């Protein structure tokens, strides 16, 4: 039992994008939830093979973009009509036309913040340590090898059976990785 608690999961190495792609389809169809694929470069369509849901980033960007734009307009309205009204070029205090550039820029700024920091948050970055770094073979993931890792916390996980399944899916090397 203590051994299982120390186990992070199982790591399987594949020789090619095609091999890892088809293995992902099988792992997805078997109903695993806590698992991931690791490749040296983006493999087109892998998100479909893995059954990943669409990213939540667009909603974060939309919400923050709208906040930025309405905040920018509200700020200028408050300054120019409430806090410190000044007549500029004989135009009305609330000249929405003049406020559009700042409104636009703040909408973009917060939207961009949402994209960058939302991405970091969703990916749980920055992350200083990851259990897979224990594996020496895993270093090849930045070079020419393709990996699938299945975590021990997955309800369907079983150290022996899952390792066997990955070998059958065409993995050239399967190993258990500790926490």
């Amino acid at each position, binding site marked *: 039992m203590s051994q299982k608690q120390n186990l992070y999961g199982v790591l399987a190495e594949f020789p090619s*994008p*095609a091999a890892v*792609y*088809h293995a992902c389809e099988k792992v997805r169809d078997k109903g695993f939830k806590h698992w991931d694929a690791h490749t040296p470069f*983006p*493999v*087109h*369509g892998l998100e479909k*093979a893995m059954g990943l849901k669409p990213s939540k980033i*667009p909603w974060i960007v*939309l919400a923050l973009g709208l906040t930025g734009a309405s905040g920018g307009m509200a700020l200028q309205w408050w300054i120019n009509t409430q806090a410190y009204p000044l007549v500029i*070029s004989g135009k009305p205090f609330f000249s929405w*036309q*003049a406020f*559009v550039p700042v409104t636009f820029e703040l909408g973009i700024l917060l939207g961009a913040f949402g994209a960058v920091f939302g991405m970091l948050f969703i990916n749980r970055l920055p992350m200083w340590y990851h259990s897979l770094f224990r594996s020496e073979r895993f270093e090849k993931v930045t070079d020419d090898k393709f990996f699938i890792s299945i975590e021990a916390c997955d309800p369907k996980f079983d150290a022996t059976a899952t390792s066997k399944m990955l070998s059958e899916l065409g993995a050239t090397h399967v190993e258990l990785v500790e926490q």
Partner: protein
Amino acid sequence: MSSNHAKAINPVDLALPQTHWLSKLPVIAIVIGVLALVGALAMALGNHEKVELLQWSFHTSYLYFLSMALGSLFFVLVQFATRAGWSVVVRRFAETYAATLPLFAVLFIPMLFGFHSLFHHWTSEEAKSDPIIQAKSAFLNEQFFTVRGLVYVIIWSVLGVYYYRNSTRQDETGDKSITSKLQKSSYPGIALFALSVSFCAFDWIMSLNPHWYTTMFGVYYFAGCIMVVYALMLLTTLSVRGGTKVSNYISIEHIHDLGKLLFGFNVFWTYIAFSQYFLIWYANIPEETEFYAMRSLGEHGAHWLPWTIALMVGHFVVPFAFLMSRHIKRRPLLVGLGALWMLVIHYVDIHWLIRPNWHSELNHFGLFDVLTLVGIGGLFFGFASLLLKRKSLIPQKDPRLAESLAFENM
């Protein structure tokens, strides 16, 4: 991973089937188009005011459909200039629309007949004593105007036909050197296009009000052209996909991309339109503000204010919100609705640019506008579908076809 395996092309799938409604369109559309134009002329002849109204309606509809053909030409030029891969499967539609530009060279002739009505601000007797117009007379005179107009339509016709001919010849020969030849000619082509479209906008729209000054009118008309072409290509793609096997080659990925470009260039139009308004509003100089004043203030402006508001809401707010989501752009019916909306609102834009310059009781959207829209539109779509039906729907031997077929959005 299917994306990494090139699909085999079956040439039989790439011809428009005889039973498809677009195959029947040429005859029907051209006949209806001619009837509408002849009918409008017959109704107007003999009545001086109605002839004038017809000239304004014709001018409006002409510049509306011209913007679609010009946008298509620009699309084709840019695809070759950038050596684009994704767009090969939809490029033939743009090539076909650009190849109808000789039609607009012919339809340019009525503008010369309507010359003194349309451009009366700088051709009338009063203009001779107007110092502002006299200062511009080296540029704004009838002879130079006619010569310039002929130069524009010749440049466009030559470019449009040249690209269509060469690209369709590649369907038969598979000669790869055609692609590099068309790429090389696209660079001077883009320069000629930019100059001719800017000056055509100055001549044919801006000079309707020669007292008005703005520095960004050429790009305003261009922004409309390059926006509407994506709406047109989306609707063409969707029409051709239904009932043919072309849907095996033009996938939802290409539709998604056309939708993205439609959204993007609609924002570009907004950016240009607002920039022009913003600078004029800020400086508040009468010879510049006149343009917006006559579309929003006073008795004359009251008539045009609804059009101005319709543009702000309908050309920016509504499509910006509607076309933003990828879920909309990946559903043919919804993105098609968006494209149809943009075609309509683009007409509102062209109408709004041209018609407030004519001070007449008759100046409302009416029967002559409908007849000239049906007339020029009938000829435009009639000739386009005639060309479409005679050649392969996809440039089937383009060297970048495999890349286009395999294209997927991340």
